[in-house]
């Protein structure tokens, strides 16, 4: 996709044509595609360059020539008679550098330890770190004590420090920072992430902060280091076998048992750990090209030399007749040359003896006009010169003819003699000047104009086609076509909309509007507000906000005073504003209601935390009786227990009355339209019905998350029992609320990860998750703040998220998209799928016909108007009366729609 703005391209081309002048400005060259904002910012700069260049074209020319002639004079004095072209092309090669990050803890003196963090890849590394003190709970960071901060550290807000890594020694590529640990302070652990400012990339440990424990009892959340566990940076997680097959609790246990060292040790021990990382780095190399005219054979001898490492293959062709079209010259060819698809020759350069690069000699017919080439490094890595082919012009009789024909031929040729016949470099400027003169003299004929204008035109044409195709693809995915017929049809097709709190309109698409880290900024509501327009334009209809109440944990899932809506996400006013803002863009808002448990304000006489404060000042009668930790005096729990906080006894009338009142208050005060109900496994679905009846939400969904069934570590094909439990819960609510389709997520995990796509069809040929049984109540998702984000309790197979979305966004059920995925590289693909879902009016009751479910491919047709496949295998929707066109396509998935 050519999203590169014109300006920067212009700039490139200028560089090319005037390369001699602009050597110095190479640093402006940005090799990747830019998006628009950066385009605007860079604009001024580029313009100013242009201005300085264009101001006087005459100067431009003479400068260019002078510069080039001196070049030649210095470098090639001896052979200047023969040399017809010499140019040193700088090339930039982007390589995936692989290296490691290491963490070393060593004892300097008795109570003086040193922690070093280093990287073996060059970069502008910054250690972003903080500490936890003894007695801290939760995952908050604190500022380290002053004496621990290495020089050059910068405090970031009140919880972190940024310290740059320094090069260990010149000539060494290791970067490191060392932190002196004073163990007399009460620092319990050191937390950090690594940041590369060059690329803006963050490196984390298993998707979380690195944590180096300095005392024994640091809680292990799976991210401790120094304990020998699987190690990996973000992006490398694929290497780590995720414990997909276990519920989160089991994962935890397993990793604990596998950690053999730190935790069990008394006192601190030295350790050294490293982990692989990779980074894209740009290497500057050069290709130098010299062309000589051999006076005896009248052949052009071109030598190409480069310091690029490894095998370098030159793909080349020659130019005749003034065009730059690649043509195949007549034999003989240099050694190691083969013909490539009749379009080019392929010559492998010979390695230099000293291993510092490669070179090649090309002997070509004297009548040819030039040599075009590109370099191929290894599979799929091509190098060209500033976006164009390398071009080596030869001095031929025809080109001198041109010069004499030009209006001021004498002048030009004089110049070109002076410059040792550096035709190519000045050719462009000469041409412009010629043209200016032509016009100035009002000469309308185009006699001097060239056949290869045709090339330019063809190129323009190609470009137009490309741009149009790009515009088409985006428009197509974001707007309905504007022909009246289709609009009418679409309206006619729209089924009657019945609002049910379990389904909303049936056309809902949910966005989970936060992740596990969202509380960190303290202003999440405000940040989210800014995304309202974007989320609306993507086609979301429902937004799930984080739990709003005062909470013992910053993430909000340990609520305390339900009527205090100031949380780490922002104040109640900011919350209300946010809800208002989303309403304005047409998005309904769900509140995250934690009804299963509540943290107490006070201890009872036994020192047990079980007395509540605030407006709902319940006592221990509001707490279920079967959790000994909290000495509740209520009835036994109607569901599973959540052990970290007192579980609320929903069987008590006063509790239910208070909760109903609270829900209605939230609706009214905040403006919520519905609910996401946390941990509904903890209490009977019948109570949920009661709550839904009272608060009348537009949409409600419960989190009923338990483990799928496995036999000997292998996921069972039949997950009916699992989905039955979820359906039972929905039934208990009388369908007043839907439920997250955990079954579908689980099956997708195994199907995608192990390439077992046959799992996606149940024995009756229906989807195997809740969505196959009760689609209108199934809220499909592939990731949430618990399973993914920085917790990663049950992460979706890495890199296969889009297959997951291709599935849930085309299938019935109400799909929920996780915030992190929307604002990731997946954005365009997700946007296209959302747009397709809305465009084709797929809804929670759409009919799905599974067309194929084999080892490596799953394909289905939904509502006869959308076809999709996931998996590496081949699938094409059946030819028939329908005209399928590809709507969205990506890695291992493809979606078609009828046109």
């Amino acid at each position, binding site marked *: 996709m050519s999203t590169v703005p*014109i300006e920067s*391209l212009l700039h490139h*081309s200028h560089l*090319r044509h005037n390369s001699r002048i602009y050597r110095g400005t190479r640093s402006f060259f940005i090799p990747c595609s830019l998006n628009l904002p950066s385009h605007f910012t860079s604009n001024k700069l580029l313009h100013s360059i242009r*201005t300085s260049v*264009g101001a006087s*074209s005459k100067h431009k020319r003479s400068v260019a020539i002078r510069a080039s002639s001196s070049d030649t004079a210095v470098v090639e004095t001896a052979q200047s008679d023969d040399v017809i072209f010499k140019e040193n092309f700088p*090339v930039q090669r982007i390589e995936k550098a692989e290296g490691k990050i290491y963490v070393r803890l060593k004892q300097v003196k008795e109570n003086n330890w040193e922690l070093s963090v280093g990287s073996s890849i060059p970069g502008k590394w910054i250690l972003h770190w903080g500490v936890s003190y003894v007695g801290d709970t939760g995952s908050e960071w604190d500022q380290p004590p002053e004496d621990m901060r290495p020089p050059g550290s910068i405090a970031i807000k009140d919880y972190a420090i940024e310290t740059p890594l320094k090069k260990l020694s010149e000539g060494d590529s290791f970067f490191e920072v060392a932190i002196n640990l004073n163990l007399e302070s009460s620092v319990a652990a050191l937390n950090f992430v690594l940041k590369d400012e060059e690329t803006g990339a963050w490196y984390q440990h298993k998707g979380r902060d690195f944590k180096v424990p300095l005392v024994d009892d640091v809680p292990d959340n799976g991210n401790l280091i120094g304990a020998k566990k699987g190690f990996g940076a973000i992006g490398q997680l694929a290497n780590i076998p995720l414990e997909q097959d276990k519920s989160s609790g089991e994962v935890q246990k397993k990793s604990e048992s596998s950690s053999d060292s730190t935790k069990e040790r008394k006192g601190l021990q030295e350790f050294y750990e490293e982990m692989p990382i990779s980074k*894209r780095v740009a290497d500057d190399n050069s290709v130098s090209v010299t062309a000589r005219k051999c006076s005896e054979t009248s052949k052009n001898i071109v030598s190409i030399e480069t310091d690029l490492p490894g095998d370098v293959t030159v*793909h080349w*062709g020659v*130019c005749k007749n003034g065009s*730059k079209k690649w043509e195949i010259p007549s034999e003989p060819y240099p050694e190691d040359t083969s013909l490539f698809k009749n379009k*080019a020759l392929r010559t492998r350069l010979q390695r230099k003896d000293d291993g510092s690069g490669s070179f090649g000699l090309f002997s070509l017919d004297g009548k040819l006009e*030039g040599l*075009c080439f590109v370099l191929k490094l290894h599979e799929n890595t*091509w190098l060209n010169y*500033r*976006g*164009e082919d390398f*071009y080596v*012009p030869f001095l*031929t009789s*025809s080109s001198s*003819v041109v010069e004499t024909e030009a209006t001021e031929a004498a002048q030009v040729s004089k110049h070109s003699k002076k410059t040792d016949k550096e035709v190519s470099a000045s050719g*462009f400027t000469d*041409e*412009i000047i010629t*043209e*200016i003169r032509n016009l100035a003299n009002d000469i309308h004929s*185009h*006699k*001097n104009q*060239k*056949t290869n*204008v*045709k*090339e*330019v*035109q*063809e*190129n*323009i044409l190609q*470009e*137009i086609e490309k741009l*149009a195709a*790009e*515009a*088409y693809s985006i*428009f*197509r995915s974001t*707007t*309905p*076509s*504007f022909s*009246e017929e289709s609009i*009418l049809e679409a309206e006619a097709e729209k089924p009657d909309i019945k609002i049910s709190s379990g389904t909303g309109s049936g056309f809902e698409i949910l966005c989970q509007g936060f992740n596990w880290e969202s509380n960190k900024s303290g202003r999440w509501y405000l940040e989210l507000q800014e995304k309202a*327009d974007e989320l*609306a334009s993507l086609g979301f209809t429902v937004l799930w906000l984080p739990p709003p109440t005062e909470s013992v944990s910053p993430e909000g899932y340990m609520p305390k005073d339900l009527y205090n809506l100031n949380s780490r996400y922002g104040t109640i006013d900011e919350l209300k504003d946010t809800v208002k803002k989303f309403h304005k*863009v047409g998005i309904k808002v769900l509140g995250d209601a934690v009804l299963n448990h509540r943290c107490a304000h006070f201890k009872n006489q036994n020192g047990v935390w079980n007395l509540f404060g605030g407006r709902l000042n319940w006592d221990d009668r509001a707490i279920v009786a079967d959790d000994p930790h909290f000495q509740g005096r209520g009835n036994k729990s109607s569901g599973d227990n959540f052990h970290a906080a007192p579980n609320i006894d929903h069987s008590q009338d006063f509790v239910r009355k208070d909760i109903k009142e609270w829900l209605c208050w939230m609706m009214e005060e905040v403006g919520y339209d519905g609910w996401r109900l946390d941990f509904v496994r903890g209490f009977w679905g019948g109570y949920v019905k009661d709550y839904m009846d009272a608060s009348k939400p537009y949409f409600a969904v419960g989190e009923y998350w338990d483990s799928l069934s496995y036999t000997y570590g292998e996921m069972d094909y039949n997950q009916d029992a699992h989905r039955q439990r979820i359906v039972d819960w929905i039934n208990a609510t009388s369908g007043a609320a839907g439920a997250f389709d955990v079954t579908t997520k689980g099956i997708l995990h195994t199907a995608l990860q192990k390439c077992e796509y046959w799992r996606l069809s149940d024995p009756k040929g229906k989807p195997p998750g809740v969505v196959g049984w009760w689609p209108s109540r199934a809220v499909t998702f592939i990731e949430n703040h618990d399973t993914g984000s920085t917790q990663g309790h049950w992460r979706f197979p890495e890199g296969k998220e889009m297959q997951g979305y291709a599935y849930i966004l085309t299938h019935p059920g109400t799909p929920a998209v996780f915030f992190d995925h929307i604002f990731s590289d997946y954005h365009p693909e997700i946007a296209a799928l959302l747009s397709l879902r809305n465009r084709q009016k797929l809804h929670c009751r759409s009919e799905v016909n599974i067309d194929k479910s084999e080892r490596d491919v799953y394909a289905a047709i939904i509502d006869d108007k959308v076809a999709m496949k996931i998996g590496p295998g081949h699938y094409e929707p059946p030819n028939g009366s329908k005209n399928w066109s590809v709507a969205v396509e990506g890695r291992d998935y493809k979606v078609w729609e009828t046109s």
Partner: protein
Amino acid sequence: MEVSVIGNPQARICRAELAYRELGFRFGSEVISGESRNRVSFCNQSSKWKEIAIRCSHRSVKCEAIVSDDAPPFLNSTPKSKSLESVKLFVGLPLDTVSDCNNVNHLKAITAGLKALKLLGVQGIELPIFWGVVEKEAAGRYEWSGYLAVAEIVKKVGLKLHVSLSFHGSKHPEIGLPDWVAKIGEAEPGIYFTDRYGQQYKDCLSFAVDDVPVLHGKTPMEVYRGFCDSFKSAFSDYMGNTITGITLGLGPDGELKYPSHQHNVKRSGAGEFQCYDKHMLTALKAYAESTGNPLWGLGGPHDAPAYDHQPNSSTFFSDGGSWESQYGNFFLSWYSSLLTSHADRVLSVASSAFSGIGVPLCGKLPLLHQWHKLRSQPSELTAGFYSSNGQDRYEAITEIFAKNSCRMIIPGMDLSDEHQSPESLSSPESLLAHIKTSCKKQGVVVSGQNSSTPVPGGFERIVENLKDENVGIDLFTYQRMGALFFSPEHFHAFTVFVRNLSRFELSSDDKAADVEDETVSIGSGTGAPSLQTA
């Protein structure tokens, strides 16, 4: 891999684009270089694509050159010899280019699209600016940011901009009148056009309230004036250089007409009279009393057919029917005079607001070609076009346009009689010819537009219309950019259309170009990309 020959085509556009850039940049001192470079392109005619490239280069040069003249380009309206060279081609942006939250929708697509059009040789872009977006929140609170962003992109790409100030709403996509106006409308539905069933047309204010202070004590004309002033100051940097035309919305869909079809999209009938809002009825009553026929002022015609009825199904439009009666003349004269005076009011407001900035103003007429072959021409009557002397129904309107030195935009230039269904007794060609003649008589400059949905043979018809030497159409706006526009079939047809426009412009010396061998260092081989795709 990041570095690859993928970059190649991108680099190419820059080369091509360089020519234009060079041009824009030097403009003022040495207009010359670009011209010459562009002229290069005329030598080859061996492929149609080339011609397109040729066309565009040349044309963009022309465009710049004209701007350099002292006179605003639009006023050089009557070319000496009619060639399509002088026709500037514009393309309209999607109606929902700026969302009602002032975001630029499908920004990437628009940017890519603009570049493609620039390369193709399109001179400019039409941007619909909606009242309901800019002054959405409260009276006098204008939010131009989204539209300014678009103007900036258009400027960056090097295209001209023609803005349409739209005081109406749109159904698809849904853009309403400003929220605060809608709120007033809830309390006082009389500000909207109303049909005889009492249904309101909420996408445009009734012509009868033009000078009634219904909007928080201000008249709609005063509010429009404020809008124009705010627009002028917000876009002052673009005025005259990037912005080379301003179209004033004159009624429903921006066209000067009554919403005679209201919500009836099928348009099978002739439409209905929209004179049943409170203010219209009051005016009608007063007019009836003043002409001595108070009984005629109690309502609209009772024998007009319903929306979906054939015009001849009742007596009003039939030959010798009420429309030809004295009553008919009374009613239709009044009905059409409101339309005329509305046009006059809006155009006067605009021409005083924009006086002295050198940017020409335009207004758009509808092309009500259905039932045109009936003597009564009922579609035109319900929409408000009538002449009591039985002569030219467009005369009064063109006079108003001439008086305000306003250009007239006529849509439907792609419609041809042969593609109309015979039952509709439609004749877009003759109606178009009629309006054009009327304009010519008054010296009103005509710009063209197509109808919003592509029709068979549309492009050929447009070219014919533009070639018409009778009326010098020097600006054509193609409606409108979007998915359909860029769909492969349509975009191909569009490029062929651009090529056809250019065919008429090749002068003899263009063809006489010698082809000589010379090495020019621009342009590169096609080898690399083909290798890559291979």
